[in-house]
C-alpha cells in the first residue's frame, strides 16, 4: 500500500513544489507575482499574437472611413468639419452605452446557459413597441414607462426560459440558436400583425445641447446614455454584490459546482433570462426615443449585439461594454465620412463581426471558460 502512495508521489510532489509551498508562508511569496490579473492565467504566445492582430485590424477599421473620406472629399479638416466629427464621435459614444447595455443581456444568457439568443434584437424591438404603446395609448412618459415595461420584460424572459430555453440548455449551441431564431421570427410577425410594418417614432426631447461652439448632441441621446449607464451600473452591482448575483456568476463559471453549493440552477436560469430581457427592453425604450423603428428593425440590433459580444469576448460583461462603445463609434465614423454612409453602417457591424471571428474568435477578452 505504501508503495502505491509513493508511486503516485513524485508526480504530485513535483507539481506541488512548482506551484505552491506550505501555506503558512505563501503570502509574501505569491502576492507580488500574482498581481491583479483577474485569474485568467498567462496568455499563450498565439493568444498574444491574435490580440495584436485584432488591435491592428481595429486601428485599420477606424482609419478606413478617413481614407475613404479623403478619397471622396468628405473629409475637410476645417473647423466646421472637425465640429461634425466631434459631434458624431460623441453621439456614437453615447449610443455605445445603450448598445452595451442590451448586449450585456445577450452575454449574460450566453455566459450562464451557453445559448446564443438570436431573438435579442426582437426583444429590443418589443421594448420599443411597449414604450410606444404606453406613450401613444396611455400617454406615459417613455422613461417613466420603464417602471412597468421592465417587470413585463422580466416576466416575458422567464416565460421564454420556461417554455423554450430550458429545453435547449446543455444542447449543442446550434439548437439554442435555431430555437431563438424561430422565436425572433415569430415575434416579428406578431408585431407586424399588431402594429403593421409602418415606421413609428416617439418624439421625445429632440433639442440639441451645445457642448462646445461646434459640438452639439441631442438631449435624448444624453438621456438615453445616462439611463443606460445607470442601469448597467445597477446590473453590475447586482452581479457583484448581491447573493443572487454571486449565484448567477457561480452558475456561469461552473453550473455543476454551483448546484452542489446549493444554487437552484433552474431558478438562476429564469432570473438570468428575466434580467436579459429587461435589459433588452430597456434598450428598446432608449432607442425608441432616438430612432424610428418597425417590426423588422430588431434584426439590426441582434446583429449589433452579436458583433459587440464577439468583439468584447462572449460571456464578458466588461467586454460587452467596450465592444458597445467601439462599434457605435465606428458606426458613427462610417456614417459621417463614407458616401451613403448611413446604409453602410450595417456593413461596419457585419465586417467587424466577420473579421473578429477570423482573427480572434475569442474577441478582445477571450471566451469565458465554462
Amino acid at each position, binding site marked *: *500500500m*505504501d508503495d*502505491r*502512495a509513493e*508511486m*503516485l508521489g513524485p508526480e*504530485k*510532489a513535483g*507539481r*506541488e*513544489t512548482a*506551484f*505552491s*509551498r*506550505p*501555506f*503558512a508562508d*505563501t*503570502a509574501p511569496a*505569491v*502576492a507580488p507575482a*500574482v498581481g491583479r*490579473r*483577474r*485569474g*485568467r*492565467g498567462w496568455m499563450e504566445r498565439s493568444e498574444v499574437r491574435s490580440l495584436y492582430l485584432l488591435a491592428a485590424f481595429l486601428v485599420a477599421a477606424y482609419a478606413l472611413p478617413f481614407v475613404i473620406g479623403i478619397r471622396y472629399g468628405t473629409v475637410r479638416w476645417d473647423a466646421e468639419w472637425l465640429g461634425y466629427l466631434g459631434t458624431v464621435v460623441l453621439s456614437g459614444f453615447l449610443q455605445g452605452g445603450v448598445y452595451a447595455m442590451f448586449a450585456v443581456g445577450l452575454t449574460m444568457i450566453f455566459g450562464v446557459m451557453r445559448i446564443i439568443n438570436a431573438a435579442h434584437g426582437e426583444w429590443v424591438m418589443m421594448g420599443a413597441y411597449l414604450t410606444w404603446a404606453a406613450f401613444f395609448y396611455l400617454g406615459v412618459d417613455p422613461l417613466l414607462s420603464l417602471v412597468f415595461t421592465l417587470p413585463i420584460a422580466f416576466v416575458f424572459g422567464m416565460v421564454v426560459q420556461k417554455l423554450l430555453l430550458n429545453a435547449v440548455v446543455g444542447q449543442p449551441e446550434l439548437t439554442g440558436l435555431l430555437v431563438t431564431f424561430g422565436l425572433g421570427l415569430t415575434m416579428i410577425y406578431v408585431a407586424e400583425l399588431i402594429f403593421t410594418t409602418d415606421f413609428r417614432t416617439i418624439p421625445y426631447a429632440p433639442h440639441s445641447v451645445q457642448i462646445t461652439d461646434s459640438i452639439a448632441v441631442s438631449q435624448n441621446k444624453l438621456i438615453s446614455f445616462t439611463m443606460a449607464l445607470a442601469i448597467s451600473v445597477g446590473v453590475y452591482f447586482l452581479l457583484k454584490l448581491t*447573493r443572487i448575483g*454571486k*449565484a448567477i*456568476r*457561480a452558475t456561469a*463559471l*461552473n453550473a*455543476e*459546482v*454551483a*448546484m*452542489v*453549493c*446549493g*444554487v*437552484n*440552477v*433552474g431558478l438562476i436560469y429564469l432570473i438570468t433570462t428575466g434580467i436579459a430581457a429587461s435589459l433588452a427592453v430597456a434598450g428598446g425604450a432608449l432607442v425608441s426615443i432616438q430612432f424610428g423603428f418597425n417590426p423588422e428593425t430588431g434584426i439590426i440590433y441582434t446583429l449589433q449585439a452579436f458583433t459587440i459580444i464577439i468583439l468584447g469576448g462572449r460571456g464578458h460583461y466588461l467586454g460587452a461594454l467596450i465592444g458597445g462603445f467601439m462599434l457605435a463609434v465606428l458606426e458613427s465614423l462610417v456614417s459621417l465620412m463614407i458616401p451613403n454612409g448611413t446604409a453602410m453602417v450595417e456593413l461596419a457591424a457585419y465586417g467587424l463581426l466577420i473579421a473578429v471571428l477570423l482573427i480572434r474568435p475569442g474577441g478582445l477578452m477571450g471566451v*469565458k*471558460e465554462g
Partner: protein
Amino acid sequence: MMPDANGIALEARDLRKAFGGVHAVDGCSFAVPRGKICGLIGPNGSGKTTTFNLLTGLAQPDGGQVLHDGVDIAGLKPYRIFRRGITRTFQITRVFREMTVLENMLSVTGLAVPDRVARERAGELIALVNLTHLRGEYGGRLSYGQQKLLEFARALMTDPDVILLDEPAAGVNRTLLQQLLEQIHRLQETGKTILIVEHDMNVIMNHCERIFVMDYGVKIAEGPPSEIQGNERVIEAYFGRRQSGVVHAG
C-alpha cells in the same frame, strides 16, 4: 431532522447507474454511520466518483435508494440535497476561478442567515484553512493545494451534516494534508459524518474508521482498516493489479 435510530447518516441501497452499456454503479449498497470518518476506495473506474455524484444529485440513479436520516433523497435536485446538509468537494478542484476567495465562500446559497453573518462565517472558515491573507485573491490564482483548502472551506459554509470529500489528498503537499486531516478530525469531533474517496492509502488506513471497497460498481468489502488490509477479495481486485496497472492509477 431526527437522526436515524441505527445511527446511519447516509445510506446507499442497491444504487444503479449505467452510462450507455457501462454499468458504472451496479447495485452498490453501503451505510455510513453517523459521526464517523469513512473511506470509499477501489481501483480506477470502480464507480466511486459516480457514486458520489449519485449521492449528491449530480447524476440521477437508474435505480436504488439514497437515504439521508432515513429519508430517500435519490433523484432530488442537487440544491435540495445540499440544503439537507450534504456537501462535497471534487476530485479535481472546482473553485470558481474568476471569483475571489471570499466570493467563492459567499456564492454558497441556501444559508438562512443575514449577509453579515454569512461574511463572518466565511471569514472564520477562511481563517480555519489559513487563507486569510488571500481572501481578496481570485480563485484561479491560488495554488492547487490552496484551491483544495478553499473548496473544503466552501463545503463547510452551511455547517453541513455529511461531508463527501473526493480525493482530498491528491496534489496536496504533506504539510497541507496534515492540516486538512486535522480539520477533518475536528469536524468529526463536532459530530459530522465524513466520507472520503481517496487513493492515498496512508490517509485511508490511518484516518478512516470504516472502509467500503468498490470494484466494477459493486461493494466487494467493508470493514475497519485492519480487516480491509487482509481481505482477499480486496487484494485480488485492488492490489493484485499492482504489477500491471497501478502506476497509471489515480
